[in-house]
């Protein structure tokens, strides 16, 4: 039982003290059993106060400390570190949340808020009286990282990790690397094309001995936890032994009777079942799409390197950390959305990029030369009725840059931008300026009054009530309507589901804290990078890839990790293995073992997260949580409701 407890009540610079009378809280707890020091502080987390706490702990020989401040998500670790610096075991620190749970929640009731704060602090004091010193669980960490997704963010992160000294497994679901950027051709800001950028990164990936690249590969099973994840990877065969010569490959493609929409070109062209995305695609080995292959065998006759006997392979990888760089999907408009799928000259932005890629001196779509182009912005983003409330960030800049390219590449182009307010942030402003000076026409409406695309005879007409000309109704006859589609989270979230990575309101992977821990997830050891976390341009994706690589590397490089000892504990006498705890455990931390002639449950403390799901289902009450025992909880309840 602690006898020298110190309590600090934080103002949080008004965040708490504007609603909670912190001095009253202090007075209410200063006489509690064991409390020998109680203070209020403007910012408990500020360096000066941390120093004061260290001095207090040393001078007054405190054996337990409570800070009543913000959510433990923000500063539990901060104050544990403080008490540790003062020589006290960090598990003798208890955090009381009187900001998120009190001042912010009850800003309309200052008296009530103060009373609630007093109870919460009293409960924390009750808990700290019982705390025991604990030592962390030390586990070995494998100095290897699985990078999932070989787009730009994943490839760049992989290179970084390898250069820093980790073994890297770069796992790509498609048969070819490069993700969305490979499909993007010319890029803003630099002269380099998407293909060239991918080539550069791919060359670096291949020159790194520490990187193993898997294509056609998917993670299908995951067990273990930070430091030691065990991944099972399924590798789909390409059905090619070696690269054929260009000639035999072309013959094999020519003889293939299957023709399917080419996803690489966003279905504006078709490809065969035997294919590569473009002639120098990486890896430079074509693949056979077995979903569509009819096994007719024609290709085998002309190309000796085709091998239909290749089987799906499975392999097990052990890694210390997982870096997710799984990217995004372009928004796919609904049928009829701005005429998409109904009017034949309505295309999406990614399709338009591919059309421009394939048209040399004339811009032609479906046999018709294009002169007037209408761009409709924010398709799938900033939706009034739909789910996507967010802005997709890259599209304004990218489409304006593309419109300039088109104007310079072909003669007689007229660009009409039907926008909702141009968002060419930062230095991209220069493109907007240039496009305006080149004579592009900008027409604007608000979210709730979007432009309309209609077919009138043979003509496609885009109509808008243009706020820039005092709501004048303006019509443009368009040869091509480009829907500037945004980014959406991957529709296939199997990897997110497998790894239990939470998603945010926008359904992209969610970081722990946008500013403090922007590339980490609540699953220890799993970091996120690139557009899997939210829309980003290339540079921003690379920055987040590099930042995520740094975090993953810092987890695995020392070879060992200190994990929380606050895990479940089994009372050997009371346990009569029934398996209920195992069923309840979300982390597979239990195993059935035989000891003393009976079966009992055993906790793998490296895997257990101390979530407590097992405790209430145990019929013999054989489980307890280290650091949050039944006794702790009962003492806290007693403090919370003293009059019952």
């Amino acid at each position, binding site marked *: 039982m602690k006898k020298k407890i110190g309590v600090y009540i934080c103002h949080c610079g*008004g965040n708490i003290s504007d609603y909670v009378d912190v001095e009253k809280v202090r007075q209410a707890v200063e006489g509690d059993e064991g409390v020998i020091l109680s203070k209020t502080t403007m910012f408990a987390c500020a360096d000066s106060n941390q120093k004061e706490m260290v001095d207090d702990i040393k001078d007054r020989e405190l054996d337990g400390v409570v800070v009543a401040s913000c959510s433990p998500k923000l500063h539990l670790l*901060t104050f544990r570190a403080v008490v540790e610096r003062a020589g006290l075991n960090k598990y003798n620190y208890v955090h009381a949340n009187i900001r998120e749970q009190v001042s912010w929640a009850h800003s309309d009731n200052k008296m009530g808020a103060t009373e609630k704060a007093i109870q919460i602090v009293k409960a924390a004091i009750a808990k700290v009286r019982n705390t025991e010193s604990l030592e962390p669980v030390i586990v070995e960490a494998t100095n290897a990282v699985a990078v999932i997704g070989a787009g*730009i963010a994943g490839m760049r992160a992989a290179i970084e990790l390898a250069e820093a000294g980790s073994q890297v497994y770069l796992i790509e679901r498609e048969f070819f690397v490069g993700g969305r950027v490979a499909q993007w051709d010319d890029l803003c800001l*630099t002269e380099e094309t998407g293909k060239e950028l991918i080539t*550069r990164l791919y060359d670096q990936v291949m020159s790194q001995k520490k990187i193993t690249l898997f294509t056609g590969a998917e993670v299908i099973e995951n067990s273990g936890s930070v430091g030691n994840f065990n991944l099972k990877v399924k590798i789909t065969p390409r059905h090619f032994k070696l690269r054929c010569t260009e000639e035999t490959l072309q013959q094999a493609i020519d003889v293939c009777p299957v023709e399917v929409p080419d996803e690489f070109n966003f279905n504006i062209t078709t490809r065969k079942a035997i294919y590569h995305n473009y002639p120098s695609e990486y890896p430079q080995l074509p693949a056979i799409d077995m979903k569509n292959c009819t096994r007719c065998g024609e290709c085998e006759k002309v190309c000796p390197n085709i091998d239909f006997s290749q089987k799906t392979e499975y392999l097990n990888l052990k890694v210390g950390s997982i870096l997710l760089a799984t990217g995004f999907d372009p928004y796919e408009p609904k049928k009829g959305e701005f005429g998409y799928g109904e009017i034949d000259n309505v295309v999406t932005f990614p399709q338009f990029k591919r059309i421009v890629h394939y048209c040399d001196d004339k811009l032609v779509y479906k046999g018709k030369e294009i002169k007037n182009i209408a761009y409709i912005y924010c398709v799938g983003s900033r939706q009034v009725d739909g789910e996507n409330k967010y802005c997709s960030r890259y599209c304004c800049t990218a489409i304006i840059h593309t419109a300039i390219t088109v104007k310079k590449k072909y003669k007689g182009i007229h660009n009409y931008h039907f926008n909702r307010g141009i968002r060419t942030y930062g230095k991209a402003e220069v493109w907007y300026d240039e496009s305006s000076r080149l004579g592009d026409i900008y027409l604007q409406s608000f979210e709730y009054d979007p432009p309309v695309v209609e077919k009138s005879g043979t003509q496609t007409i885009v109509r808008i009530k243009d*706020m820039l000309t005092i709501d004048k109704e303006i019509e443009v006859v368009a040869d091509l309507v480009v829907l500037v589609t945004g980014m959406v989270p991957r529709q296939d979230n199997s990897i997110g589901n497998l790894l239990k990575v939470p998603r945010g309101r926008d359904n992209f992977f969610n970081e722990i804290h946008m*500013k403090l821990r922007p590339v980490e997830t609540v699953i220890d050891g799993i970091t996120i990078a690139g557009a899997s976390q939210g829309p980003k341009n290339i540079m921003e994706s690379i920055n987040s890839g590099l930042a995520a690589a740094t975090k993953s590397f810092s987890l695995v490089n020392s070879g060992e990790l200190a994990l929380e000892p606050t895990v479940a504990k089994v009372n050997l006498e009371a346990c009569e293995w029934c398996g209920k705890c195992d069923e309840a455990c979300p982390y597979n931390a239990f195993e059935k073992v035989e000891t003393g002639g009976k079966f009992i449950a055993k906790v793998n403390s490296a895997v257990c997260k101390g979530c407590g799901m097992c405790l209430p289902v145990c019929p013999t009450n054989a489980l307890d949580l280290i650091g949050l025992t039944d006794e702790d909880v009962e003492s806290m309840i007693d403090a919370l409701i003293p009059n019952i």
Partner: protein
Amino acid sequence: MSIQKQMKTLEYDVLVVGAGIAGGESALNLADLGYKVLLLEKELSIGGKMILLSKVFPTLDCAACITTPKVSEIARHPNITIFTGAEPQKILKKGSHRFEAVVLQKPRYVHVADCTGCQLCEEACPVSVTDEYQYGLVGRKAAYIPFSIASPRAAAIDIDNCTLCGACERACPTKCIDFTQTPEEFLVKIKSVVIATGFELFDPLKIPRYGYGKYKNVITSMQMERELAPTRPFNTVLRPGDGKMPDNIAYVLCTGSRDKSVGNPICSQICCMYSIKQAQLLMGALPMADITIYYLHIRAFGKGFNEFYVQAQDMGVEFIKGKVGKITGKENGNLVVRYEDIKAGTVKEAEHDMVVLSVGVLPNQGISGVFENEELQLDPFHFVNQVDLMASPAKTSIEGVFVAGTASGPMDIPDSILSGGAASAETTSYLRKESL
């Protein structure tokens, strides 16, 4: 040039110039990996501009709550040495993984280790001057603690304004004030440099028609930031002219951004969002106040930003699409804003009792001149040029010199932190190459 021999020589792995959030993030990451870092900060406290902010968009986290623990972690990290009041005078590249920097540390006239931050010197000091950390809203003494959550939280003497009366020395209980301190130069040998020198705010005096400096109730967004911060000077929002609580506040976006007439054609990337944030905070602080935001385009592009913009609209913030032409003052201190209402297609005037100029982000140009034998290239907008923007955004024109945060262009806090992470990653790779 030659570097003088008598300077004290120090050796580190990395020199990080600028201890704002980007430099701090880079320094922490590198220090965690075991590299020895010298972190230079020209101001008296680390934490950059962020530590002075109120709350941050789009989560409305209190800025101090996020910054202070980071600052504390940086300050106590065994692998990080911090010099405040210090700037590099010159940096020379002597070869691969070999740089030499001459660092000048200005005297603080206070022994930081002995100062307890008791503020008795402040009370004793008879000199009052404008407080730059409160952006001129209030005064401070010549002997002063920069601000309450400064790190180090230690006094400093502003020698330019000090009358050398000695009152502070007599008042100081620990005798930590020392007028004999002189500027000190260090020769620092390092293997790599990270530039995180941040940005400067646009000075609205350059747009006289907005009346800043002429009408007291026209303030900058950074001044409003201070009025809203937990360490705020007035403990409430007041207009500086007469101390009245404003109830009709206007924001003028793109002040000094997207404006070729003041030499800054680009968008500052943060002003829309911080103005929307301030509008939301003001609606909490002054529930009866009307807030109007005059804008050209709202750049709410980041994660959760557009939702935050919509939330402000739903809260009742009025958004008027139009460029403000001129601001004139009335006798009662109110201001008449003349603007083009684009939606209505006319020029209009509206009266407000306070106007906030949402000032933009400008480059902090000094750093490029410090590099003597190799050129640190700047981009057309005078930010540090990123030579491999698409694959290695932290690389500069000098091998071994990396850039983090707003030194390379406008960016918000999450992007600055990611950029700081990227710079530390590239520095790590560069340092590893030496040992291989």
